């Protein structure tokens, strides 16, 4: 019972995150949405870890948190560079290359 609630929460977070990645125009918000998904994953991992009494889920979650930090660092740098060259962070307008 308990587990299901965690899982549903994670699924909802996941979906919100996916929606954000696909629908939001602002690059920074898209990054945040990705973080949402990662956090959904973390909830899952920790919940499962507790349920199965296995430590590796928590370890996994720690790794995810650490890596997410690194990713966001890189991501923000890229968004910054985008802003420099394109004078916008609206991802819809960054479509020079296509086809």
């Amino acid at each position, binding site marked *: 019972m308990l587990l299901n609630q965690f899982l549903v929460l994670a699924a909802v977070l996941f979906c919100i995150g*996916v929606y954000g990645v*696909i*629908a939001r125009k602002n690059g920074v918000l898209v990054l945040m949405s990705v973080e949402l998904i990662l956090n959904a994953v973390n909830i899952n991992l920790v919940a499962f870890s507790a349920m199965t009494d296995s430590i590796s889920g928590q370890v996994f979650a720690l790794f995810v948190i650490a890596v997410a930090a690194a990713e966001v660092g890189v991501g923000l740098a890229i968004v910054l560079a985008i802003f420099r060259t394109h004078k916008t962070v609206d*991802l*819809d307008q*960054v*479509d020079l290359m*296509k*086809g």
Partner: protein
Amino acid sequence: MLTHAWIIPLIPAISFVLILAIGKKLPRGGSEIGIASVAICFVLALTVAFGWVSRVNDGTPPEGRQSSQSYLITEGHETRPVTEADAEAENGTDAAAHGTEAEATSTDHEAEATESTEATATEDEHGTETSAEGEEGGEEHHATSAVVRDMTWFDSGGFDIRVGTMVDGLSSLMLVVVTLISLLVHVFSTDYVAGDRRYTHYFAFLSLFTASMLFFVLSSSTIQMIVGWELVGLCSFALIGHWWEEKPNSDAALKAFLTNRVGDVGLLCGMIILFFAANGSFDIVRITEMANEGAIRHSLLLIASLSLMTAVMSKSGQFVLHTWLPDAMAGPTPVSALIHAATMVVAGIYMVARLYPVFFEGLSIGTGNINALAIMGSVTLLFGALLAFVQSDIKKVLAYSTISQLGYMVMALGVGAWTAAIFHLFTHAIFKACLFLGSGSLAHHIHSFDMKKDMGGMRKVMPKTYATFLIGTAALMGVPLVTAGFWSKDEILAGAHMLGGGGDGYPFAIVMGLLGAICTCAYMTRAIWYVFFGEPRGKSAEMELHENGPRIVVPLMILAFGSIVAGFVNIPDGSIPWPAKWQLWFEHMVEPTGTYFVATNPDFGHPSFLPWVAVVSFGAIVVGAGAAYLWYWKGLGPHGITERNRFARAGYVVLEKKYGLDILYTDWIAGGVKGPIARAAYWINQNVIDGLVNLVGRTAAKTGQWVYRYVDQGAIDGAVNGSGATASGAGEVLRKTQTGKVQTYGSYLFVGAALLAAVIVVIAS
């Protein structure tokens, strides 16, 4: 010599190569090589003929023949067997035919290690049968089998395809005819085409033709016949197109070759059918024997003979496929004489005669009253004769005359008169060559063959040509008793009366033959009038004409002489007083008696001399020639009847024709033939038949263009390029999915993953 006949075609073949190689450097441009080779061939052909005659007469090959061979270049083992054969043959005098045959073949086996034993068995067996049946049948002469000598040409798939020579009366005769005419034409040509820019090539191809023709007539297998058949066609092509700078000439050459190719389809199919019918053999003896014995299904024989008839139709200028022959007159005249009158065009006749049992059984010649071969021949003979009426070109007259005469031969074969056909072939070759060379002699200076425009009154300036031409004409008309044509044509007509179911013979053939004879006389008389009588016109009036030199005149004289005496080799019993030894000598010598021929077939027979036929045909001459004489010389007859009311005339004919030949003559022959019928026939010929031929050609080209444009470049290539374009187009469409917007990509990614998961959950559970 009979077993060494292979040398004969080899000589002109070598001569061909030699002329091409060194001809231009020789003082006479290579013609000397050609003449020498053909002369040697002629001598050898005579040797073979004498050899055969002796073989028939006493079953023993003549002595001393080796001496004449000693100068020939042969490998040691090639000459030796003959000596042995001779020696052995002397021992076997009692069982003459059998002995000879066996030796001929057995020695061959010694000579040719490659020869299969199966063939030996066949040969021996057939020799035995021949002599046995000969005795039973009580024939007055011994059954004499052909001398066959062959070797493996190639093996393929378990079939032993052989090549060799087959010497019997028929092929000996052909050897003599071909080499004789060829020799005379060679001599004639040295003057006639002198100064021609391709003089050397001309002689080279004459040599090649001679070689091919000799190869053809000596064939021991049908595949070899095909080879020879096509090779003579090639030479015909090359020589018709000799002056290829002018388009009409090359057109004519193409037409000849292509029309012959149409017939060749029949030849190939027919020969293939016979090959399998004979259990996988091209061997002529085997095929004919099996046909004779009824070992081949009748339906197969029928299809084969009908197929082969197509070939005859094209090569021998029979009705429907004859149109190339008049066009072939575009070639030099001596070529016309040699190829398109005397030799090549009779290849079809020869082929039928060679494979006669196939036709005899296949078409039920012995028992029917009508058959395709006879119809084809008789229609051709009349049609050709009618067409000859409206020609103004002397060579075309002769060409149509040739078609008509070939029709006689085919008809003769169709009604079962084998010997008559071959006899006519023989005499026709001589007198038609005489006529053609005569026309060449006439045109030598004026360079025109137009009788109406450029000739006339030439009997005065060219008396020798005139005389020989007249003799040739007489032979063609069949002036009784003295000319060769009479005897041969008479035998055909008699033969048409001989066989057939219920003893009725082939009545229509007789009628057609007589009508043809009348026409023949009339058109030849007309030609004589235009050429030799009246006042000189056109070029012959403008130029100072004189008789030609000896190289032209002497061959003419020889041929004219032949046109008279050639008939006396086959004088039928009871016609004129003639030594019994020489009566039907030709038949005796030429007609095969072995099991590979129909001689033993009870349905087969020989015509006897019928005085009434002779009289009627004489009447035909009188009518035909007389009418033409009256018409042209005397200006008699209803000139201009064609302008009058034809309907009335038709009714008049219907009413009046029973009153007699003169009415028939007036309305039908002089008025009708000269007028509407001949013209209609010519119109049909030029527009319908020839048109058809041309149409076929044009249609093929048009179809080709259509197919190429729409099917090949359109549909097929289009489909291929289309699939390329489709792929490329799909690429263009799919390219649109690459929008450049990262979130579109993101949605693809997620939707893709979700769909995949959904689909696979369904599939995998």
